[in-house]
């Protein structure tokens, strides 16, 4: 059997040159086409997977975003142009404010808290003994389901819960964390940050390990203090890890859904309503798949812009972080 994917040997190549003519060139062309066909055949399962699970849904979502569909009968899809996008930003629509605003604040808050916390904790862990143990402890929330995390924190935030119990013991009045629109979103942000800090710590401790010790030795010889060392050596050299954490946390924050639905269901009022929750409701509760798909594409654009901005901000002197 001829191995059509095997590279041509030197002898075969020579013969090709020596006897180059219309027949030989045609033969080579056919062989190359056969090679290409075989290559695509091998790629076919993967391409089929992407076609079925990525391109097909994406195309369908694009079609729905410019249609009206109640979700019951595929024959009822009715094209409406850009009406759904206009509806999202029309007077009376809650999508821009508070839904999209909440989504951005939620993601921003999560990134700020998780990044700050994880940098501090990772730096501390890097100087401790039993680093594996500490990393495991901080990673534990990641292996817990979001539903469990959300419910436990919900009970802790309750008027008679642990957090208010501590406040009361300190002589401070109770706070309606999840019932007050002013505190509901920050309260959920804290939980999201707490739940995602473990991954960030793992990435950052790996980043810290990759910083050569010679920089710190040189800094010590020059008499640099710990704050200077942290700001001038650790943070700049952690840039690639920080970028990774920042981008992934932001993406998670922008697409967050489960924690919100468990803890507040988007309330009180619209105080914690976020884009993913709104999409779910539009599609599965209200049967407005057009609006849901349009909202999904708007969120996709937001995610894209935010990610590009982050990449731009972290870029320095042509060096991609």
């Amino acid at each position, binding site marked *: 059997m001829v191995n059509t994917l095997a590279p041509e040997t030197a002898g075969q190549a020579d013969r090709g040159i020596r006897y180059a003519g219309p027949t030989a060139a045609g033969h080579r062309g056919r062989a190359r086409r056969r090679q290409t066909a075989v290559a695509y055949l091998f790629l076919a399962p993967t391409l089929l997977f992407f076609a079925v699970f990525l391109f097909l849904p994406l195309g369908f979502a694009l079609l729905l975003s410019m249609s009206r569909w*109640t*979700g*019951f*009968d*595929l024959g*009822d899809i009715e094209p409406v142009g850009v009406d759904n996008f206009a*509806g999202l930003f*029309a*007077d*009376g*629509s*809650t999508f821009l404010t508070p839904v999209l605003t909440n989504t951005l604040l939620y993601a921003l808050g999560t990134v700020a808290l998780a990044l700050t916390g994880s940098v501090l904790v990772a730096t501390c862990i890097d100087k401790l003994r039993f680093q594996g143990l500490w990393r495991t402890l901080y990673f534990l929330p990641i292996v817990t389901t979001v539903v469990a995390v959300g419910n436990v924190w919900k009970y802790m935030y309750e*008027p*008679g819960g642990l957090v*208010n119990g501590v*406040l*009361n013991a300190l002589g*401070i*009045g*109770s706070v*309606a964390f*999840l*019932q*007050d*629109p002013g505190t509901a979103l920050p309260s959920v942000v804290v939980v999201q940050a707490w739940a995602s800090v473990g991954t960030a710590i793992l990435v950052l401790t790996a980043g810290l390990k990759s910083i050569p010790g010679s920089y710190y030795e040189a800094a010590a010889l020059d008499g640099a203090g710990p704050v200077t060392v942290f700001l001038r050596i650790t943070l700049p050299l952690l840039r690639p890890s920080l970028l990774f954490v920042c981008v992934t946390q932001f993406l998670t924050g922008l697409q967050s859904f489960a924690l919100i639905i468990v803890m507040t*269901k*988007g*309330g*009180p*009022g*619209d*105080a914690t*309503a976020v884009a993913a929750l709104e999409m779910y*409701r539009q599609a*599965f*509760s*209200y*049967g*407005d798949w057009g609006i849901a798909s349009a909202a999904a594409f708007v969120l996709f654009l937001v995610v894209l812009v935010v990610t590009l901005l982050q990449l731009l901000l972290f870029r320095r002197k042509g060096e991609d972080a």
Partner: protein
Amino acid sequence: MTPARRPGAAGGLSRRHFALALPSALLASGCAAPHRGTGRPGDPIELTLLSHYASGELKQALQGPVDEWNATHDRVKVRTKAVEFTDLLTTFMVRQAAGQGADILHPYCLWNGQLVRAGVLRPAPPEHAEEIGRGYGEAAVRAASVGGEVYGYPTEVQTYALYYNKRLLRAAGLDGPPGTWRELEEAARRTARRDRYGNTLVQGFGLSTYDDSTTVGQTLALLNSAGGRFVSADGRSTAIDSAAGRAVFGLEHRLVVTGASAPGVNVYKAFPSGQVAMVISAGWWTGSLKELMGAGYRDVGVAPVPVPEADGRRATLSTGFMLGVNAASEHPREAWEFLRWLNTEKVGVQGAGRGAAATRMSALQVSVGSLTGRADDMRTLLSGGGDPNLRPFLEALAYAVPEPNVPGAQQAKSLLRKNIEALWTGQRSVDEALRTTRRQVDQEVSRSW
């Protein structure tokens, strides 16, 4: 004589053919519609019924009559499928889009407009529509109708009334439940208690942000009792921005501001624990309370929803479910026949006196502590004593206003809930909340038509 086998063939099928055939067969079996009979005259038919009676006594209660039907009917059999209520609408959608919709659907009446507009529900044939109009109360028939056309047999009907804790009211020096809004406010203030840190010990009147049905149900029951309506007569806009709407929002706002209500408290936990003095809720709750409270249930009383003035006309909210036939069903005649048998044919009722008869559905609903829209059945079934707390819910069938079921009703309800919560938490004033509700609901409801 055994045919000679070719080398490499397995049972007459080469490995290559087998490898190709297996996935195709699996794919075909996965995508194929379930067997529901051939449809030829005289051949057996299997009807599927999709409901939310997914567990516990509800599932058993429905399975009883279905088993009876299957045992007494040779040709047409019924198979029940059930999902949790929270997954019911989604399941309707997904199965319908995949061409796997059940023959008989059991939707929440709030969704009827949405389902009718999407062409999922089949209108009831004239003889069934006439039977439904004759046998059920007005609220139940209106809940099962869209645009004046009947789409199914009403099953459980829930009316809203005032639950109160007799012990807490007595402790506050009150002899009985409030009959007017003024009395309600007074009773709520007198029964509410907080500790020095502001934690609620007893909520006078339980306003709850637990879910759409609780938050909106309480408000719409009060709105109806004030003579107001949520949706206009033509169903294309909201009518809440009215004097009645202002009065209800004002009442709730005052209750929260004065500390008589604490909307953050989950009333479904707090009331059985004696931490809520009064709350408006639906009749199904009596069954749950009995189970949860045990002997403590004797402290629970139920009264009609208070009216704004002493001489006011009573009204409250009613919600419900119905059994309808899928527009895509291949056996609509048989499906309607089964529904008629289940919902209108009277059978003897045990423990309700000699000769007492009620429909299978009514008996089923009462057995799980619920009601149907058939007042005659309810009177029969509850005549043998039973829980006196069910009486106000039964009486309310005569004057209850059905929950609006226009296209977009689910979204309108969610938007109303958000604005009620914004009012309760001080994000919006009474007027702002009414204006925002009107603007948002009008925009979304108009889109749904």
